[in-house]
């Protein structure tokens, strides 16, 4: 993924920007109202944005879905914003770690760190709400919810048991 730079637009929302594979610079303006603007920078004035699309809240969900985004992580991001002190993160499961081939129950994540594993991302597929019997493989990405401290502890746990 290209590096995304973020700029706050106080009172309006946030603007994201990245350089696309062909060298074009693309920006997305998140309005607080839920409107999203997709813009492009080009030409002899580097500061001017050209509007490509203006999307309503529902439109951008649909488009994101069509472009292949995972709905899970975006919904989680909204949750994170609404609940104070709640952190959501993605943790990689190391291939040489103790839980390669184990199950979620084996990690003891919930009892030892208070963190819940709410989804497992493997390749292009997302497995939401996995049970304790769910088998883990090295290279999986775990989507976890908990306190920032708990998530830190879990990250260490996944590496070294």
């Amino acid at each position, binding site marked *: 993924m290209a590096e995304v730079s973020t*700029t*706050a*637009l*106080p*009172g*309006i929302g946030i*603007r994201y920007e990245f350089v696309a594979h062909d060298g074009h610079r693309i*920006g997305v*303006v998140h*309005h*607080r109202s839920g409107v999203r*603007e997709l*813009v492009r*920078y080009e*030409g*002899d*004035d*580097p*500061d*001017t*944005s*050209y*509007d490509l699309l203006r999307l309503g809240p529902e439109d951008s969900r649909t488009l994101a879905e069509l472009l292949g985004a995972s709905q899970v992580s975006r919904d989680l991001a909204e949750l994170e*914003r*609404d609940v*104070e002190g709640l952190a959501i993160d993605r943790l990689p499961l190391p291939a040489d770690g103790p839980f390669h081939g184990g199950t979620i129950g084996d990690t003891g994540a919930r009892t030892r760190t208070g963190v819940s594993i709410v989804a497992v991302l493997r390749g292009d597929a997302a497995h939401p709400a996995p049970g304790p019997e769910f088998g883990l493989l090295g290279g999986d990405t775990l989507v976890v919810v908990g306190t920032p401290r708990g998530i830190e502890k879990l990250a260490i746990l996944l590496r070294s048991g």
Partner: protein
Amino acid sequence: MHDATFLLELGGVILLLAILARAASRFGFSPIPLYLLGGLAFGQGGVVPLVTANRFIEAGAEIGLILLLFTLGLEYSASELVDAMRSNAVVGGIDLALNALPGLAAGLLLGWGLVPAIFLAGVTYISSSGVIARMLDELGWMGNRETPFVLAVLVIEDLVMAGFLPLASVLLVGGTFVRVLLSIGVAALVVIVVLTIAARYGPAISRAVFSRSDEALLFGILAVLLLTAGVTEAFNVSAAVGAFLAGIAFSGPAADRARSLLVPLRSVFAGTFFLFFGFEVDPGTIPGALPAALVLAAAGVATKVVTGWAVARRGGIGPRGRARAAAALIARGEFSIVIAGIAVAEGAEPEIGPLAAVYVLLLAICGPLAARFVDRRAATSTPA
């Protein structure tokens, strides 16, 4: 019969607002200058002065002022304000020095005395975040690189106003030096306390007030708003500032819903507020205020252009972006009227009313015109 007259007058006023708002949206302009004109035409000494509905409109105007500031506060969170203040203090300083001094100087040259001159400084200083935010959106400038700098200037101005209004209100009350100093201390303390509560307990307050029922949420918000405004007013800190601080306290889903619930209400009462300001200005005083207003408006364009250019340049923006930032900041509007309105209501200086009205009329129209001009020039010279 009394009731019929009242309803007819009120209906007439609302009809006037409807026509003006329609005309404004037709031409894609802020309705504020039109409301002011409407107020001038139908207020004291105007074509058809109102009699019975005046009281009601006066109360409506006060609510309009509070809602105006509250919805402004809703746009920002406490952390955004602190961030903006930290990272753009220099920008804010340039803006304040360039744009407040002409007003101050003009007030003193007109022989108004220091306190009214300070109010005039506020009038010339503050850009209209309402007019400008809408303009940026309509022109498709939100994605532009210079826009964060323009918005940063607006945030700082709004924050400066939260400090300015209580200070100015205290100065208006006057008294001995020690008393003024004491009142300033109290005012500062109240603002700091309310701001701290907003920053620390904002999320908790938002959660407590939030409800799935629109009605419950609306009343909850209005209660917090009016009580905060009342408390600050009781400490002589201007209800407008209390409303602004209350707005900052709300964040997250409560703020989002509050915006959608309150914006229609705000439109009604804020329209009344601008109209009422126009009512209070005797059209006979306009010609006398015209020369000073024209000079100030010319100066106001120049100083904001310099500000915008300098601010964008500091941010590493190219010449065209600088030109856009310069044009974007010109518009003055609601807050210049708010400041002048407080000065008039407290009887500081009657002449500030017509002067501010003409000043805002000119700049609320010139600003967006200048921005469109810059935009069109850029569009013709760049193959899009």
